């Protein structure tokens, strides 16, 4: 059973959380995540979930609390944005390194200073190496679907890693869209019960977690952690397929749009993928062989899939909604370039930093990126590899 509803991104994730009915949710308010937790607080207040709701005094404590509850075998969730995410940074590593399958929604927002409440990806990109699986959403439907899949991925006994799903602040979180939602019971049946092997509350089998780990073991533990997240590709793909059987909406690590015969393509993540699809449609009418690759999963980084998907293009442009100060381009650009190194006749690659602090990016701007690529594909020399889209200079 499914139904079509009109929800904002925040409400869509809140609804998914209601249907998941976690044991523990910890929350601290930060714009634009706030309404997600308002929605969930209503469910708690009206007895629509069994969740114990902890309203902590900071995001640092929100992550600390779900670390504690997850260590007890409780299905645990939280949500945040921007500076709240930055405040959690220390604990992001603790959660991943202790292998706690916490699910967190991050409503992407720019980092201070100057303070800005609108969307960019600097927050989650800053946490990209913390050991969490990262899944980006294009719209409310995906935010809803990703939240449900995240539970199943995180709790897979061979993975047991925290998963963050992201949705673009305001652009998705505060925009009402129509989406398909499942029946709550179907969601719970599909994700199943979480009964981990170990729990701190198992007083007959005491164990110590989070010990002091020095030169003689720490490195091996980090090596194992690298192995685990590298093993999660298959689980993410498998869960995406299973979810497809349940809903008709199958998910993969990346999504290809009009790439079959495309010569030039944009690589993008989050809500701008939707705008880019519109741009591609228009360019196709103009006879330009444009395509798009949406990066859904950024961690683990799907380098094999990208190598295969990108090798036939003449030119690709990576859109980064994040600035990596002092680096040669944005984080997505850098990783894609690294993934393509060594393949025979790789495409020319350019980078566009865009949309910082919620700066709107429209179809015309995306089209301009394709026109730049088209000229390069026809032999024009690349003027700038690192470009800034839609900024006054």
């Amino acid at each position, binding site marked *: 059973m499914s139904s079509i509803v009109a929800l904002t991104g925040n409400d869509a994730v809140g609804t998914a959380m209601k249907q998941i009915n976690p044991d523990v949710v910890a929350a601290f308010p930060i714009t634009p995540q706030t309404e997600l937790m308002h929605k969930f607080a209503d469910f708690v207040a009206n007895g629509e979930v069994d969740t114990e709701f902890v309203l902590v005094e*900071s995001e640092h404590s929100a992550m*600390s609390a779900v670390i504690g509850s997850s260590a007890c075998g409780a299905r645990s969730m939280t949500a945040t944005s921007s500076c709240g995410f930055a405040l959690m940074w220390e604990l992001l590593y603790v959660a991943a390194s202790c292998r706690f399958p916490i699910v967190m929604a991050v409503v992407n927002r720019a980092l201070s200073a100057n303070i800005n409440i609108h969307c960019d990806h600097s927050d989650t990109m800053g946490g990209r190496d913390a050991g969490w699986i990262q899944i980006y959403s294009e719209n409310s439907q995906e935010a809803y679907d990703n939240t449900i899949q995240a539970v199943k991925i995180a709790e897979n006994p061979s993975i047991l890693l925290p998963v963050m799903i992201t949705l673009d602040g305001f652009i998705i979180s505060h925009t009402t869209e129509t989406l398909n939602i499942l029946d709550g019971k179907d969601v719970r049946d599909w994700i199943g019960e979480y009964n981990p092997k170990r729990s701190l509350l198992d007083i007959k089998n005491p164990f*110590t977690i989070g010990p002091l780990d020095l030169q003689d073991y720490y490195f091996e533990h980090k090596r194992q952690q690298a192995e685990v997240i590298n093993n999660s590709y298959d689980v993410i793909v498998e869960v995406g397929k299973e979810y497809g059987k349940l809903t008709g909406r199958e998910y993969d690590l990346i999504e290809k749009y009009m790439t079959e015969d495309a010569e030039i393509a944009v690589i993008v993540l989050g809500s701008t993928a939707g705008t880019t699809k519109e741009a591609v449609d228009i360019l196709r009418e103009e006879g330009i062989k444009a395509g798009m690759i949406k990066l859904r999963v950024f961690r683990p980084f799907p380098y094999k899939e990208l190598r295969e998907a990108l090798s036939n293009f003449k030119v690709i442009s990576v859109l980064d909604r994040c600035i990596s100060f002092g680096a040669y381009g944005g984080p997505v650009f850098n990783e894609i370039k690294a993934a393509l190194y060594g393949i025979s006749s790789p495409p020319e690659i350019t980078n566009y930093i865009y949309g910082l602090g919620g700066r709107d990016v429209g179809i015309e701007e995306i089209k301009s990126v394709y026109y730049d690529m088209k000229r390069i594909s026809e032999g024009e020399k690349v003027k700038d590899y690192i470009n800034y889209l839609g900024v006054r200079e």
Partner: protein
Amino acid sequence: MKLLLKEMAKKEDLLSGGHRACTGCVPADVLRQVLLAADNPVVATCATGCMEVVTTIFPYTAWKVPFIHSAFENSAATISGIETAYRALKKKGKIKDEIDFIAFGGDGGTYDIGLQALSGAMERGHKFLYVCYDNEAYMNTGIQRSGATPMGAATSTSPAGSVIPGKRESKKDLTTIVTAHKIPYSAQTAPYNWKDLARKVKTALAAEGPSFINILSPCYRGWRFPMEEGIEICRLAADTCIWPLFEIENGNWKLNYKPKVKKPVEEYLKIQGRFRHLFKEANKHIIEEIQTEVDENWENLLQKCGETQ
């Protein structure tokens, strides 16, 4: 509450020997005494610090109870999550045992960096005991001053210099700060009086809500005294009224120990190297200041507890 040392001695020590604490470490003794006093099974956490570091060097652990270490400033937030999970899973019938929850933290992790998390957890009313083992400086990182370091003490970041003679600020009154959260039980104790400590732990764990015990835990490395004197120093702290033993149960202040003769603070200061410089002629006024402050605090406490001098 009847407490017999003979009976307590028969109980299994929940912190095993062989950990890496210094010989004569009082905080390690505090951990053992607290765990011995608990009647229900315990789940524990500890802030980053000496006690966490010396008890958990991988692949060993001294903890015979389930134990988690997460970070420095979040012991109270971590236990909040644990206690919440307990309620959630008990409600669903997945857990049946009665379990007590104890969060440990040193003074750095409690008075300073962990104060926000502690305050939040107290305000939210989780049922757990927070134990601060107060050794009056950041000992694990090399004896840096904290909000718990007393006035006049020399530490590695408040050294006794030729211009500045040790820490210039007074010790933060954490027990009163925590009590202001109107939690059902808070107390101060010291391990020289095992009976007082054990009774307070039992009372705290029986409280319907958050409880807090601040335990003076001398560190001979940081305080510079002979390693076997830690417990005696605690006794002197109580006899000089520098560290009074008291408790606040549902808002009622009660004094638990009143020395027959209140000793001068010099008795306590002179055996600790961290105060040695105060006995130089130029610094002796600081000893007077310390005495005045101790007298005022003691008067204040007596009044709160309805006692007379």
